[in-house]
């Protein structure tokens, strides 16, 4: 479904804000037709990446391009829609008025009725923005991003403030949108969201890409089992065992992630006769994600 043509690109992009490095020598291609999810914790550099590709921020070094050119060119911006995190939207304008204003910026606008329908805004189009609930406000921002029927859609943490049901309905919309040859770059800190939507997941932490692959590949990096116990075997020793992907010790309890549990447990019991409180469980998506981040921190 996704081709190899790059529609947005970061090329060795570094972004500093004063002494802070938000993005450190990141290279990233968004390929036509894919849903690319940029996954990472808060402050990882997801929003900075989006802002560079949109031409809202200038990279300190390296480059950011849209459709092979300057992201600030109006011709390139006409092909893009962006849902960004906004502190405050003018509250005294009605939903319909906001949509009318944004449709006017684009050469291929969807009709007002289509935008209302896509955003799930039917029935609240005459409300003022300030009168909407948090989820409704997010949907208006989503609708504004769709006004120009963009080839490439940027969604920066789109489901913040959504309840589970609305979030799932929203995912369906995005999938359908891509099936028409559109491309989506989505940032999120929910692995579940990336897993549900993305063809490709790029995990980013502290301004550096730590993993890049399909959702199942990403999960496979830390497939398997979680072992918890109280043991005297130290972390370095555990890490050297076959199959162990990460170790954490928290207030006397050791937590081990491993590709398979049996050999690790056998080895632990052999080395530590006094091992206690042993638990073995499977790793959830969030754990897999956290484990990737921790590995990047340990490195």
């Amino acid at each position, binding site marked *: 479904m996704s081709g190899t043509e790059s529609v947005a690109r970061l090329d060795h992009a570094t972004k500093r804000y004063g002494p802070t490095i938000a993005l450190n020598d990141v290279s990233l291609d968004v390929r036509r037709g894919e849903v690319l999810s940029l996954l990472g914790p808060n402050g990882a550099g997801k929003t900075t990446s989006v*802002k560079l590709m949109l031409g*809202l921020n*200038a990279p300190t070094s390296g480059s950011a391009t849209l459709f092979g050119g300057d992201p600030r060119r109006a011709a390139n911006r006409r092909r893009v829609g962006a849902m960004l995190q906004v502190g405050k939207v003018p509250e005294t304008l009605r939903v319909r008025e906001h949509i009318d204003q944004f449709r*006017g910026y*684009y050469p291929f*606008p969807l009709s007002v009725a289509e935008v209302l329908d896509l955003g799930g805004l039917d029935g609240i189009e005459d409300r*003022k923005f300030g009168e909407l609930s948090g989820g409704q406000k997010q949907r208006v921002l989503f609708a504004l991003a769709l006004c120009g029927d963009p080839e490439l859609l940027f969604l920066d943490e789109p489901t913040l403030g959504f309840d589970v049901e609305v979030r799932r309905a*929203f995912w369906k919309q995005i999938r359908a949108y891509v099936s028409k040859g559109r491309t989506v770059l989505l940032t999120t800190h929910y692995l579940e969201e990336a897993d549900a939507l993305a063809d490709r997941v790029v995990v980013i932490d502290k301004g550096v890409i730590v993993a890049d692959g399909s959702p199942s590949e990403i999960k496979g990096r830390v497939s398997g089992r979680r072992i918890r116990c109280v043991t005297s075997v130290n972390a370095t020793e555990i890490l050297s065992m076959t199959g162990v992907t990460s170790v954490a010790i928290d207030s006397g309890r050791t937590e081990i992630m491993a590709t398979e549990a049996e050999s690790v447990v056998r080895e632990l019991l052999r080395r530590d006769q006094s091992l206690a409180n042993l638990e073995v469980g499977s790793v959830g998506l969030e754990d897999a994600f956290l484990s990737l981040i921790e590995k990047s921190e340990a490195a």
Partner: protein
Amino acid sequence: MTAISQLQPLAARAPVQSTSRTIRVYFREAKYELLKLMRLPAFFIPTLGFPMMFYALFGLLLPQRTSGFDISQYLLATYGAFGVIGIALFALGVGVASERGQGWLAVKRASPMPLPAYFFGKYAMTVLFSAVLIVLLCLMGAVFGHVRMPASQWAMLMVVDVLGGIPFCAAGIAVAYLVGPNSAPAIVNAFYLPSAFLSGLFIPAEMLPSFLRAFAQFLPPYHLARLALTVIGVEPASKAWIHIGALAGFAILFTTIAVIAYRRDEGKTYG
């Protein structure tokens, strides 16, 4: 949320082809700026209401002809200047600072909207609100203060006050790009109210101690007030060019600061 399946393939789309599309973008920016501000009492009550209230109190209700000139006419000129300056500083300074700081300007900049259209919308509404305020003040002066002037003088007063807002629009944009959304109202008020007082917008400058008046020469509102007073014959016509020159100078200075602040911001963002 079902219509997404009806979206057309990219190649099948037909552009909304119109040479006037850009013009309509500018028009819509102004239109929605107007609707936004009209529905925002926190904007129009202070910016329109305060000058009218002060003028009614000090220009119409208090004793007349205290210093040899018609105080209703005198304060009509100066409260006009006061109001126009306030509209420019609050609509542009506080308005842009808030939209920039809260991320809304970024959403608009990520769209193909030309950035000048954004400022055009703000500026057009500053002019419109200024014109409305001046008309209201003039009506108050004519009806309740028995201010009488030839039609050309009325017209000239309006033109001077409305155009005199330009340097303050530039000052507003400079403030918006120099400070954040939370400090912008405080910074604007810290400049606005004291300089309005020192420039003789509340109390005729002629009644202020001479050292304060000497200091007022350096304040932009002073020159707008004196220019308005030239129209009604309080300030000698020969000095008009000094005040026009001073206002033009301040306009250039504030625009330069605004451009520098915008460029400095570009290091962090593209503005």
